[in-house]
């Protein structure tokens, strides 16, 4: 009896150590601090903003979770038409640009970009973009995982939450960036949302303390929009004075749970920001 007790105990301890040590290995091929440092040190494809005579008045297209694959249709040609029709300055996504983080998928995006788009495409990093050697491809072909640029009177911040965390260094950088920003409008583009209504599902930023700290920063620095994705579920909530929009997918094959594939057009008109939600299936131009 005693032997059985000791054997079962030893087995369980082994399992526990295996599980906890296994998680410490971090199955993600890259970690937030590494990606953050590479992005801030300029070791990625840079963000080059379009020239504009009047950047106080412009519009851009925001969407998320395109999940682009080489073997399935995507909405890149439609995005070309949308940006041309609206005279948008750029397109920006909140991550999961690719479905599997594969080199072929990133190459496919570059080809489509050159064929279909006349404006730049920027993207936050999503968890799907990280699969395999995703980060190595993303940083060379898409851009940084963390960035802040000022366009006219708007601060556009790309935040890396692809592995469901922000990390100390990136959080301090965000706080510093917001603190020094003189922009009238502040936008954060990132993959994971901070809040989902009613039931807390494992689709929002994982660490509650990080959520509280981020919410505190949104409030303190009066961030206008927190634009996120990941949930494949369209939802819009107000966090204090900040509007958080969890975009549904903009994928031609991976439909959102409660909506249709969608995109937003944000129009900055001096001190005013307006936004419209549109569905890809409704495009008639």
């Amino acid at each position: 009896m005693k032997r059985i007790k000791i054997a079962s105990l030893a087995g369980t301890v082994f399992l526990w150590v295996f599980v906890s040590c296994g998680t410490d290995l971090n199955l993600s091929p890259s970690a937030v601090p590494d990606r953050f440092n590479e992005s801030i040190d300029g070791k990625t494809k840079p963000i080059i903003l379009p020239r504009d005579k009047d950047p106080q008045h412009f519009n851009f297209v925001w969407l998320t979770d395109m999940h682009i694959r080489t073997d399935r249709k995507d909405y890149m040609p439609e995005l070309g038409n949308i940006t041309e029709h609206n005279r948008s300055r750029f397109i920006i996504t909140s991550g999961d640009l690719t479905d599997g983080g594969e080199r072929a998928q990133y190459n496919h995006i570059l080809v489509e970009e050159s064929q279909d788009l006349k404006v730049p495409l920027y993207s936050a990093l999503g968890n799907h973009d990280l699969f395999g050697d995703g980060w190595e491809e993303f940083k060379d072909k898409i851009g940084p995982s963390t960035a802040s640029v000022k366009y006219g009177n708007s601060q556009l911040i790309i935040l890396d939450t692809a592995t469901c965390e922000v990390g100390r260094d990136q959080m301090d950088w965000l706080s510093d960036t917001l603190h020094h920003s003189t922009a009238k409008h502040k936008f954060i583009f990132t993959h994971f949302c901070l809040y989902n209504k009613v039931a807390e599902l494992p689709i929002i930023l994982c660490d509650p303390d990080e959520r509280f700290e981020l919410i505190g920063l949104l409030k303190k620095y009066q961030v206008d929009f927190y634009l996120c994705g990941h949930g494949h579920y369209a939802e819009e909530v107000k966090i204090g004075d900040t509007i958080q929009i969890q975009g549904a997918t903009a994928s031609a094959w991976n439909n959102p749970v409660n909506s249709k594939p969608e995109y937003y057009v944000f129009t900055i008109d001096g001190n005013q920001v307006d936004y419209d939600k549109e569905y890809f299936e409704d495009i008639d131009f």
Partner: protein
Amino acid sequence: MKKNLIGLVILILVAVSAKAQEQTGAGAPAKNPEWGYQFKGIDYNYVIRTSASLSDTDIQLSSDYSFHPTWVNLTPGIEMDFSNPGLTRYFLQERINLSKYNSVVARMNHLQYERWEVGANFVNLYFQQIRPNLSWALGAVYIAQLLDDWRNPLNFNDDLYQLRMLYQVGYTWRFRQNKIDFSIGAENFTPYENYGYDQLGPYFQLGYQISQRTHLAAMADMRMVGLGTALPHLERETYSLMIDWRNLPKKPKTAQ
């Protein structure tokens, strides 16, 4: 918010009704327990917690008072964070002992982060069964995230509220005439953090019964996240050293 509070009251009433169907048997509490004040014990924890957002060292103190062995068992507690003075956490817990092993726990937690100027009030409500070897708990927490009036422990503003599932399951082995115990399990909340964190938390605890009244335990708890993103990783590590003192009557000395 009102609906949630009403729901909470109904759940407690259900628990109360269940208790009203008087239990019998060896495990049941006395049939006619009396009302009266009793100091049940005190619990002291030294906690080291490391995560991406907060790395802190704190002391948690809680004490148990009973005014009725079944119905009114109160535990107020406070967390004093030395490494991060801006963080304040305290709670008030009520445990309804349905039987020797089963109880329903309702707990109000308040957290405030001075540095971030936000706070949160949580109401945990869960069923817990603690058997000599097996323990488990299942319930839910109502979370009111506070951006305004964030120091108010009674602000349950429903502008930014959430519900979250709480779970815990553990198994305990005892050795050397129950002097040493070893527990292992998984959970997403513990009494040593005021609310549920993350998705999966394997933990183990090694305990030593110093005397009939005093128990010493060391616990390590790991929290994993990213299970739903296929990028699982360790998010939070918690290590604690706990001393628990129970106000038990001393054993009468055996006659020679």
